């Protein structure tokens, strides 16, 4: 279980996260929705150790993460798909995936997981020797997801995986997220596409300028008038 308590994160003098608490239980899909600049990416980076919080605690299965370096957190089973399709452009698809397993040592396990990723994203298999920088936007997003899966995470953080993709591809990505979850990986999903995210989420939180303003099940929030007005277009 991932438990965030009274988290505060600042960039210099600017407080981007002003004290939020939420939790993600094992096996759940939890989504964090909010407008641009609400602090979603900041929250994700704080959890995976890329940013040091100013205050508060982040616990994974009872262990405090805020003092740990990112590579320690990855090896504890928490992986992140960063915002904006960040692939290693000058390396092949296969090398990108291998790097996803950077913190692991079990060679046979890594090979098996690579096959599993290829089963999930057949398009990546066809392009395994292609440079990641020459993949299409959708393929790069798949690669970023596959790479995170190579860490064999028990919990996966995804920051706007559907950003900038065609409607068809968005559906595909959301199906894959559900599939990853059904195989036992807990998911914390950040999305602008609130409608889609709420539809697959067990629970959801609304983040507004650094504070959580609403919480509930995916269905509850999807039917909430305030959410409808602000995030679902009326």
């Amino acid at each position, binding site marked *: 279980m991932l438990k965030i308590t009274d988290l505060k994160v600042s960039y210099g003098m600017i407080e981007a996260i002003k004290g939020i608490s939420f939790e993600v239980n094992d096996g759940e899909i939890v989504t964090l929705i909010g407008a641009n600049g609400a602090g979603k990416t900041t929250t994700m980076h704080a959890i995976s150790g890329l940013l040091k919080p100013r205050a508060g605690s982040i616990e994974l299965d009872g262990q405090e993460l805020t003092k740990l370096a990112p590579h320690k957190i*990855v090896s504890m089973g928490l*992986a992140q798909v960063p915002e904006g399709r960040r692939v290693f452009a000058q390396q092949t698809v296969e*090398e990108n995936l291998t790097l996803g397993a950077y913190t692991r040592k079990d060679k046979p396990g890594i090979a098996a997981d690579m096959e599993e990723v290829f089963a999930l994203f057949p398009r990546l298999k066809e392009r395994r020797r292609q440079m990641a920088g020459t993949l299409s936007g959708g393929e790069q997003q798949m690669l970023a997801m596959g790479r995170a899966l190579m860490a064999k995470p028990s919990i996966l953080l995804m920051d706007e995986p559907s950003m900038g993709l065609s409607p068809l591809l968005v559906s595909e990505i959301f199906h894959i997220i559900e599939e990853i979850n059904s195989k036992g990986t807990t998911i914390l999903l950040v999305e602008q596409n609130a409608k889609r995210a709420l539809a697959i989420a067990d629970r959801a939180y609304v983040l507004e300028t650094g504070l959580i303003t609403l919480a509930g099940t995916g269905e509850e929030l999807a039917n909430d008038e305030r959410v409808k007005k602000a995030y679902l277009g009326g």
Partner: protein
Amino acid sequence: MGAEKKKIKLPVFLTKPRYRSRVASFSIILAGWLILEIMMHTGNLSSLFTSLLVPVCCYIVAAIGLNLNVGISGELNLGQACFMSVGAFTAVCLSGSMAGSVSSPLLRLILAMVAGAVAAAFFGLIIGIPVLKLEGDYLAIVTLAFGQIIKSLITNMYLGFDAAGFHFSFVDNKVELQPGGKMLLNGPMGATGTERISTFSAGVVLILISLIVVFHLMYSRSGRAIMAARDNRIAAESVGIEIFRTKMLAFIVSSCLAGAAGALYGLNYSTLVPAKFDFNTSILLLVYVVLGGLGNMTGTIIATVVLVLLPELLRSMQDYRMLIYAIVLILIMLLTNNETIRTWTMRITRKLRRQTNG
């Protein structure tokens, strides 16, 4: 249609980039070595050419190291010559002080080169620890400053050696030596009276060692991590790569190679002034790296050889020398950055690969 095109099975070392780049650079070096040795022994090599052999080797090694730092790790370093300087003066002093105790020149050369490499790596460590923790191009600024500092330091250093050991001073004429003692460093005059123990063979061996080290690193797990940190910092951190450690590794290896190269360089001349390793030399090394191609070690070797030899070969054409040099620079730039040529080589490699994957 009809008969299937006959597939030629090429050996793996010609198709996989990781092997191909090794084969290419090792064969260039070994072929060059063989040809030059033969020419030297048959007396077909001019004295000018012969005198350039060791320095060319030194520049190649320093440039290979720099390419690891700039091309593979993506950190700009404007002070590579300065690491050569540290290695050179360490080596000269050590060799000078060992002249009485270690009689074999080869052993002294090896010890001096190791000491030069270690000294340069030590300075790399001191610079790298604070600077590489920061995000941004701070390494360029700091290595630039480091170059000036080291030059001023050595320019003002007086070091003597006698039966009682080393005598050191920052003030002229303060070093008093017993009879039989020897001055190793003479301030602005640098090191004088150095016994010239560098050899071309040592240079070639040093190049081979540096290629082995750099290729081993490039195509290892650490090497992929170094490139990942260069390509995308956030993604690299998110998969658990320690950015600081990877950048440090590349930087230290680079400094270390420059130090060993500097040692070989210093022991090739009877006098060596600190001004030899100034900002211009650092920039020249960077030019070799950029023109040879970032991350391309074979290219670095070729660019270094051409650009070191060219001005010397053109010495007789005083008036046109710089003109021709500039034209060649532009030509190399066009060649290595030309889209048509690049697609052409890519097509060839793809063809080779397809044939082997069959």
